[in-house]
């Protein structure tokens, strides 16, 4: 059916003795927005973080199963983990700009990839700031610290910074939860534009947001995938009892 980028097979994740993710089998379609939906504590953020192996930062986390990115298994891969992470940009629940100027925030990813030519950097920084609708707001103060931006602007800066690394996939973990409605809508609109070039995986518990922008939905509950389907099928014709209950607002 889909041309999938990420395929997860029998993924289990334990945090100490707690079984967080239970036998996850999903596939994430290319150049679409896949929304991971579910009540809080259902493991959706953990699933997202396991994709770029941030879960490894905690020694008590044990994983088994397979995560294929373009057909290559990430968990048994010999490839350097930084190379894998470069393929996936992360947008966190709240913006974490780097402690440097607005310009350097975007240039950082390019510099660590060895691109240091001034002209090239100027060009790229402008390009990615335009991509995230920030350029007009910050073009006169590129040298100022990123901390001077508003939270909404910081989140767009984080998006620009992530895009500058030229990832294939954008991982977004409730990226609008700290933002005002206007900035949230801006991010949502941006995602809708970006999906022509990037595969986007968005974690959210906001049903409205999921309805607005999802192409594909994965519904999780208590560490298990209850249902996954195309957005239209999912919202109009849910198959599982739990999905129906959730969509009707019987639990959050």
């Amino acid at each position: 059916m889909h041309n999938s980028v990420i395929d997860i097979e029998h993924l289990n994740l334990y945090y100490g003795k707690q079984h967080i993710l239970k036998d996850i089998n999903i596939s994430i379609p290319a150049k679409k927005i896949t929304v991971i939906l579910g009540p809080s504590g259902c493991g959706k953020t953990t699933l997202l973080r396991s994709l770029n192996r941030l879960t490894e930062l905690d020694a008590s986390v044990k994983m088994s199963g397979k995560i294929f990115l373009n057909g290559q298994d990430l968990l048994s891969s010999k490839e350097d983990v930084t190379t894998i992470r470069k393929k996936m940009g992360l947008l966190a629940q709240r913006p974490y700009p780097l402690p440097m100027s607005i310009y350097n925030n975007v240039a950082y990813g390019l510099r660590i990839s060895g691109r240091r030519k001034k002209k090239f950097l100027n060009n790229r920084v402008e390009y990615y700031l335009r991509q995230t609708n920030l350029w007009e707001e910050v073009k006169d103060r590129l040298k100022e610290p990123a901390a001077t931006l508003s939270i909404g602007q910081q989140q767009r800066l984080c998006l620009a910074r992530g895009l500058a690394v030229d990832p294939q996939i954008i991982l977004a973990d409730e990226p609008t939860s700290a933002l005002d409605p206007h900035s949230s809508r801006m991010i949502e609109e941006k995602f809708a534009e970006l999906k022509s070039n990037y595969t986007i995986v968005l974690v959210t518990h906001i049903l409205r947001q999921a309805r607005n922008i999802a192409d594909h939905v994965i519904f999780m509950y208590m560490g298990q995938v209850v249902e996954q389907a195309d957005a239209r099928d999912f919202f109009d014709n849910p198959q599982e009892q739990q999905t129906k209950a959730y969509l009707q607002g019987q639990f959050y």
Partner: protein
Amino acid sequence: MRKILKIEERFYRVLMFLATTFIGTALFVILFSILRTGLPHLSWEMLSEIPHGGYYFGKSGGIFNAIVGSVYLSLGSSLIAFLVGLPIAMFINIHLIRHTKFVAVIRFLLDLLWGVPSIVYGAFGFTIMVFFGMRTSLMAGIITVSLFILPIIVRAMDEVLRNVPKGLLESSLSLGSTNSEIAYVVYFKQCLPGIITAWLLAFGRAIGDAASILFTTGYTDYVPHALNEPAATLPLAIFFQLSSPIPEVRERAYAASAILIFIVLTVSVISRILGCKYNKNKINF
């Protein structure tokens, strides 16, 4: 019930006021007594000349040798401790992030070392010197004091680095940074003001300590010109003058203390200014 709460509120308010006043007064009395006794004896001669014959019996001269010795010693040792300590602090906070138990052990050991009296470091340094056949020298002092302030500077920087939110680490990792890039670009910039404060803390301990340098740096009336020469230091100059039976010499000790305090003050102000200057990029999470 309301009334009890009010009384409780007032009780703690008074308690805090008393504690603050107590510390403030103690500090003021110390400074006042040093300055009152010391200032009349402070002169250009004292700052700029080495002890002439009979200085310790009340004759002319100054403690330029001790000022230079102390500055060399504390700058040298705090620089070495910084260069060795920063990688340690970064390593336990970034590279060892998975190994929480191991890091807890390292922190515990560093805290233990922090509590070891400086005279023990002095004795240890002396043993090492004897083993290598070294004589008392500036170099031996710098090495001993570096060892003594290393746990202090590492733990002080460690506390600063620990407060960096995990989200910043994860965001930086997601951009494809290596651990070292995160340490020396992201964390360094985020924590620079705190790192400067940690260095200042170590510098203050280094310049103020007498016990660790007693056997290692020695004492001399001359300004050291090389690392293998012994050097005079302000804490020891204060100590020797204070033990004199002659009142005027004892009073000069206070002048020397005033100089020591002034050096620490100057270094604090400079580092605060630097700290503020580099504070602007820090993100307040």
